């Protein structure tokens, strides 16, 4: 870990200013991990934990929730409103990491956690994300956990979050305070960038830009599920995960909000898949068609090829689950 200057942020303005040459630190469960390996080496750490405005979960006028960036994964999963109206989010959070980690991990930090690619983590290895231009060690290497969708020839990393997948399905937005002081709201989908030629750029945030909150829209009709497939029964990242909010009206699917984890460099949402489902009556053939659309451009790289058939099976099972016995 390189030496750094530690700055305890006293307020949003102070923090964003200080972080122009550094990184925010929230729970630290990802940043400290990577700093110890010098995969990340900020010159300054801006500790945002004392900024009260970033705490708390509040109801919004529109019937949704405004989740402060510092709300811990634990508190978010436990929130009675989330458990009742957005259970997919509770479920996703509870399937992630461990109770110890969730107690520290924050909403903002979770969204911005970095890939678990083994080559990204090892400084002796080439990695375009860590060291642009050095090549991608994983492409022809050990890549069981990496992406099959949204990749580029330069990077096949996955985004490891569970929480973000559920938020994506729920149509969440992020509230950002730019270093300039300007506040913006972005759909979560627009926060993330695909690797393309610049895998080192993962989000639209510039240094000093702070995530202040995540906004959940009002709850919608439908059943919710988060299904995570992994290598251990617990304490393992998703190989494939599906977050779904599905409603059936009069025998036809009226809503199918779907997002996927473990498949892509960002929590993955494909509106074409949803469009293919909505208005149709549930059937295995329909679900297969949805999977076809989802996986049309999927490409494996050896170890991770199994994710393609696995994603199909999991998607179909989730859709079958959420549509059988649903209100006709």
């Amino acid at each position, binding site marked *: 870990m390189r030496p750094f200057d530690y700055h305890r942020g006293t307020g949003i303005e102070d923090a964003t200013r200080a972080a122009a040459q550094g990184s925010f630190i929230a729970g630290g469960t990802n940043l400290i*991990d990577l700093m110890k390996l010098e995969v990340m080496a900020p010159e300054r750490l801006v500790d945002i934990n004392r900024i009260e405005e970033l705490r708390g979960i509040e109801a919004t006028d529109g019937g949704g929730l405004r989740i402060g960036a510092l709300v811990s994964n634990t508190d978010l999963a436990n929130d009675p409103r989330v458990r009742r109206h957005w*259970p997919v989010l509770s479920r996703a959070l509870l399937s992630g990491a461990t109770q110890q980690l969730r107690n520290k991990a924050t909403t903002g930090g979770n969204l911005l956690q970095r890939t678990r690619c083994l080559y990204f983590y090892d400084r002796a290895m080439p990695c375009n994300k860590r060291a642009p231009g050095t090549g991608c060690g994983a492409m022809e290497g050990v890549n069981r956990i990496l992406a099959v969708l949204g990749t580029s020839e330069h990077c096949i990393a996955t985004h490891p979050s569970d929480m973000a997948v559920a938020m994506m399905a729920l149509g969440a937005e992020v509230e950002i305070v730019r270093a300039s002081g300007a506040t913006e709201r972005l759909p979560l989908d627009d926060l993330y960038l695909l690797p393309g030629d610049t895998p080192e750029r993962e989000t639209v945030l510039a240094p000093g830009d702070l995530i202040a909150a995540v906004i959940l829209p009002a709850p919608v009709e439908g059943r919710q599920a988060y299904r995570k497939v992994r290598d251990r029964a617990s304490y393992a990242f998703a190989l494939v995960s599906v977050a779904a909010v599905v409603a059936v009206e009069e025998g036809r699917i009226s809503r199918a909000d779907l997002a996927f984890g473990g498949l892509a460099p960002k929590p993955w949402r494909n509106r074409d898949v949803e469009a293919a489902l909505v208005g149709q009556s549930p059937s295995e053939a329909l679900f297969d068609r949805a999977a076809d659309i989802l996986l049309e451009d999927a490409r494996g790289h050896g170890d991770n090829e199994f994710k393609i058939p696995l994603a199909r099976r999991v998607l179909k099972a989730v859709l079958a689950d959420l549509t059988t016995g649903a209100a006709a």
Partner: protein
Amino acid sequence: MQTSLTINGTARELDLDPRTSLLDALRHHLGLTGTKKGCDHGQCGACTALVNGRRVNACLSLLCMHDGDEVTTIEGLGQPGALSPMQQAFVEKDGFQCGYCTPGQICSATAMLEEIAQGWPSHVTEDLEAQPELTIEEISERMSGNLCRCSAYPNIVDAIRKAAGETA
């Protein structure tokens, strides 16, 4: 970096390199080696300690971020001759072998009973809104953040059930 905090009920003042993790502060600077280092990267749970009553991985935390916090380590839960019910149950049920993961397991288990009492759900909780029960499945899931390579898991589960019965 000047940091003031309370550890096992005692106020402490430390002035350390800001890079010092909470775990290394305990082990290298405070002589509290009960909190173990198994991986230093949040992957094993050996460093589990309680911060403001919540269990966390002390390795993924910087001491300087804990100014004003209250930290409880295994040494604060009980001592030889005055074991906590959880510690006693671990001895009786052989909830360990080499003992290296054990302080983390016990800190974790102690916090876990409180979490269940407060109604926190887990990944295996069927009904997110109901009071979770202390089933084997719930215990196993909630204790999965503490690896034990000696693999005392079945005995750890038994110890926790025993301790829960006694403290209930």
